[in-house]
């Protein structure tokens, strides 16, 4: 079990959460002015790193808030967590 520190509820088991996905992708601000290439990049292309991965989780069976998590995809270790608008950095 991965323990995810929810900024509102404290550390909880990951099966209370629903995984949302890559948090580095930012939806184009002006859809009408966005090129197909930029939409393609936003909708489909992913860095998919082995190591620290910035991602959204949804505390669906807890406080129902979305949160941002920095997690190592090779070890499953959670490096940092916060609210979606927070800038997360790995400790150290």
């Amino acid at each position: 079990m991965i323990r995810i520190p929810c900024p509102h509820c404290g550390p909880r088991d990951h099966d209370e959460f629903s995984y949302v996905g890559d948090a580095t992708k930012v939806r184009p601000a002006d859809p009408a002015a966005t090129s197909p290439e930029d939409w393609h990049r936003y909708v489909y292309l992913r860095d998919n790193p082995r190591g620290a991965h910035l991602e959204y989780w949804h505390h669906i069976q807890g406080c129902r808030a979305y949160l941002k998590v920095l997690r190592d995809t090779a070890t499953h270790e959670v490096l940092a967590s916060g609210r979606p608008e927070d800038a997360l950095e790995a400790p150290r």
Partner: protein
Amino acid sequence: MAEYSVFSLVRQALSGHKGWIRAWRDPEPKKSYDVIIIGGGGHGLATAYYLARNHGITNVAILEKGYIGGGNVGRNTTIVRSNYLLDGNNHFYEHSLKLWEGLSSDLNYNVMFSQRGVLNLAHSDGQMDAHARRGNAMRLNGVDSALLDRRDVQQLYPYLDFSENARFPIYGGLLQPRGGTARHDAVAWGFARGADRLGVDIIQNCEVTGFERDGDRVTAVKTSRGTIGCGRVGMAVAGNTSRVAQMVGLELPIESHVLQAFVSEPLKKLIDGVVTFGAGHFYISQSDKGGLVLGGDLDFYNSYAQRGNLPTVENVMALGCAMMPNIRRVRILRSWGGIMDMSMDGSPIISKTPIDNLYLNAGWCYGGFKATPGSGWVFAHTIAEDKPHRFNEALSLERFATGHLLDEGGKGPTPKLH
């Protein structure tokens, strides 16, 4: 190298099995090759085999970072089928299934392909309709399928939950009689031996660390065993595709996820074919050694760790017990995790890339094993002819930019759901 046959077996038996020679060589890498295949899994080996067999290209190296059979080709549930709805997938997987049917004799290696039938259960009228539609699509493409009602299924598998209080009553199912299972290690070993016999160099413990570029071409592959020059490069490293692609600056529509699978203690003959649950993601068959081989969903988060988490284990077992209550007291012997290339539409990519002489074979999601021979066949064609085979035209990398997606489940660009 000697053919395997009943005569060679008798001869070896009489001499105490001391005369068997290794099935493939262990060569030092040459300075350069016409084609380098990165990844010595099933797909890479099959590609090299068909490059030599179908296209006469034998100056080929397979670079494998570990050992043959140590990656995802040894980490699957060995199911083979071609029961797809969409033409682009259906034609491709049916081609692969046809190759499976002749594979043992083609390779002179028993891959233990057993056409025991793959049955997808349905638990509602809506699901029966969906199965009828998919079964009809298969038949229109010349693929065998049979829509079974509840009684048909009960005759085949009387021990599934047909009780009055079943939470998900069985309405029927879609059967593909020509589907089945194969021995996964034998597939890797058979293709490795076959490719080696045709002159392909299989280089193990050789991890790719980078590429040398000249504009839009790759000129050499940097590895842990030195730099190797190349004419063309094929990449078949599902699970780690994004990492290798990053070395040439390609960003791909792929996420890596961990998928677990399980084997039970060995039992006497219990389940004939492959059965999949329709009210949750669960599939089961029985190996020739007697172990039940089963699996379910991904762990649902990006992962490169070849191990999963317990909530998924619990979920898979609960689904299994709901479908087939007589396995409640069976003990699980072992479990493992494999890293899946989850593509953005749930279908694979066998394609040219923006780099002139680099070709991509990736995005296999849950389903790479069954595609092994077909994937090798069309990927070899793509590399040799510098254009896709008609069976992988639809599996291009550009389809994500052009909108020609192959989304069997209609789930959208959410890799974990495919």
